[in-house]
């Protein structure tokens, strides 16, 4: 069934978009990531203009994260205080990111920058997660138990000022690292059109050493606000939010996410991380290939002034 998108101004197959939303929503629920790092490239691949893909994806991430966070909320696995600190950094990071986005777009380098950022971050994070989870799986097979949480191994993070107590996370750490992480992810969220969960989740586990059970809920909770802000900014500044497209994606997305949350709970943490790592590496390689492969046409023609 073909449907015309009023803002993207193209006609697309509604079932393809529903399926896309469902598949990405499933992964999103399973891993606690927004799914934007998969959905944004996939949308561009189906012919949606990149600017519309980025703006619309922000709206869809708000919905999937909202549906996902409710289950965590009921299980009390959301650290609201930690999310608040992350958000203070995230809000300012999003604003900085939007300014950088405009500047890069005026120079015609935004597409390249987005691809490079994806390749860099997905490569590093996917690689690190893969190494770590494979080690954990091997250790588990050998009968040893490996704790992801190693109390007392805080190192330099322990020496920073502005110490706060995060009860849900059972942490007493400085507010500086979460503020910086929030800011950094906010910048990436605005520039790359993602929620930033794929960076936030590992950062919480490995840098902040939060217990794994509160990581996903807290990440989803703060993503709602960061992407909500990004969506409103994209709609206001660029008019690139297509509500019809967002609706199709989120109908598929919320259904997929519900299923994903259940499947994710039945899987072991290290297997889940290995799977996510493999996915992240695959997307990274695909984008890296596009950077070096000779394009079909060396010229790109865009409607609108501003070379």
């Amino acid at each position: 069934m073909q449907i015309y998108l009023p803002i993207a101004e193209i006609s697309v197959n509604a079932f393809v978009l529903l399926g896309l939303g469902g598949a990405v929503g499933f992964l999103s629920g399973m891993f606690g990531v927004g799914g934007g790092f998969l959905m944004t490239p996939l949308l561009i691949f189906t012919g949606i203009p990149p600017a519309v893909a980025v703006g619309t994806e922000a709206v869809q991430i708000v919905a999937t994260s909202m549906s996902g966070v409710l289950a965590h909320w009921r299980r009390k696995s959301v650290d609201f205080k930690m999310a608040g600190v992350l958000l203070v950094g995230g809000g300012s990071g999003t604003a900085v990111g939007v300014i950088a986005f405009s500047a890069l777009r005026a120079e015609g380098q935004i597409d390249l920058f987005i691809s490079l950022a994806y390749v860099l971050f997905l490569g590093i994070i996917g690689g690190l997660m893969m190494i770590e989870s494979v080690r954990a799986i091997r250790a588990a097979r050998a009968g040893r138990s490996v704790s992801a949480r190693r109390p007392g191994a805080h190192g330099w993070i322990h020496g920073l000022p502005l110490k706060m107590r995060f009860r849900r996370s059972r942490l007493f750490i400085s507010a500086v690292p979460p503020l910086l992480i929030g800011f950094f992810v906010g910048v990436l969220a605005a520039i790359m059109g993602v929620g930033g969960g794929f960076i936030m989740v590992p950062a919480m586990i490995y840098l902040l050493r939060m217990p794994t059970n509160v990581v996903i809920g807290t990440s989803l909770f703060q993503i709602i606000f960061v992407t909500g802000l990004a969506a409103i900014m994209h709609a206001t500044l660029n008019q690139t939010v297509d509500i019809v497209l967002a609706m199709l994606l989120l109908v598929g997305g919320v259904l997929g996410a519900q299923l994903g949350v259940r499947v994710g709970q039945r899987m072991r943490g290290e297997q889940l991380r290995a799977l996510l790592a493999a996915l992240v590496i695959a997307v990274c390689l695909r984008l890296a290939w596009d950077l070096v492969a000779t394009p079909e046409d060396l010229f790109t023609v865009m409607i609108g002034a501003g070379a």
Partner: protein
Amino acid sequence: MSRVMPSLVLSAAFLLGVPGDARAQIGDLTPLQGEAVVVDLSEKLIAITSNFTGAELLLFGNVDAPDNVTPALQRDVVAVIRGPYEPLTIRRKERVAGIWVNTGAQDVPAAPGFYHVASTRPLDQIAPHAVFEEAQIGLDMLDIASEREGGDALPANYRKAVLRAKMREGLYAEAPGSISFVGPSLFRAEIELPANVPVGSYVATVYLMRHGGIIGQRSINLIINKSGIERLLYNFAQGTPFLYGLAAVLVALLAGWVAGTVFRER
């Protein structure tokens, strides 16, 4: 030699800003007594609704053949449909340190968003180059950069890139042979409008050609517009973008909440 075109046609062409009363100095271009072209479109207002997947426009017309003897083969009809003009930015990639980077860019203040040439035969069989050049008929003749600042021409490789990109999207096309005569005087052409066709006002100009020159022309307007819910949403997003963004986020929150509640674990 008097070449008086019907004044109605001339003034219509003038009002619509169609390039040129372009008749070349070749052959006998004197219209036969009463020979004129009339033309119409199957639709003059195309509404884009949610199930819009492109449209097929039927252009049809009549060439008066007063003597009923002049065979259809001795004349040609060329139709040009021009869409709303829009600014373009063209960027060129180069390999820098192994990866492809945009290194050059050119601006075009106004290029047609849609340009379709339908004709009875390939253009080079109908009339000499100069005739089409003067009337700006055909993709080779399309003047993409006439209004550029400083008057410098758009480099040829950038020009070709525009044509290539627009043809790929189905927005620019030349369709020789797509106009066919039905009987001695009636002609018709089907014009494919893709789903990504730009919104705005279009002009279809039909040129009657004989002996390598233009002997008559007629223009007709076409409007393509969004309608219904599509129009509503589009105007909302363009008119009050902040409220639109806020509404989109609220709808997303609600949808997520509903889904999360409905699928609550038991």
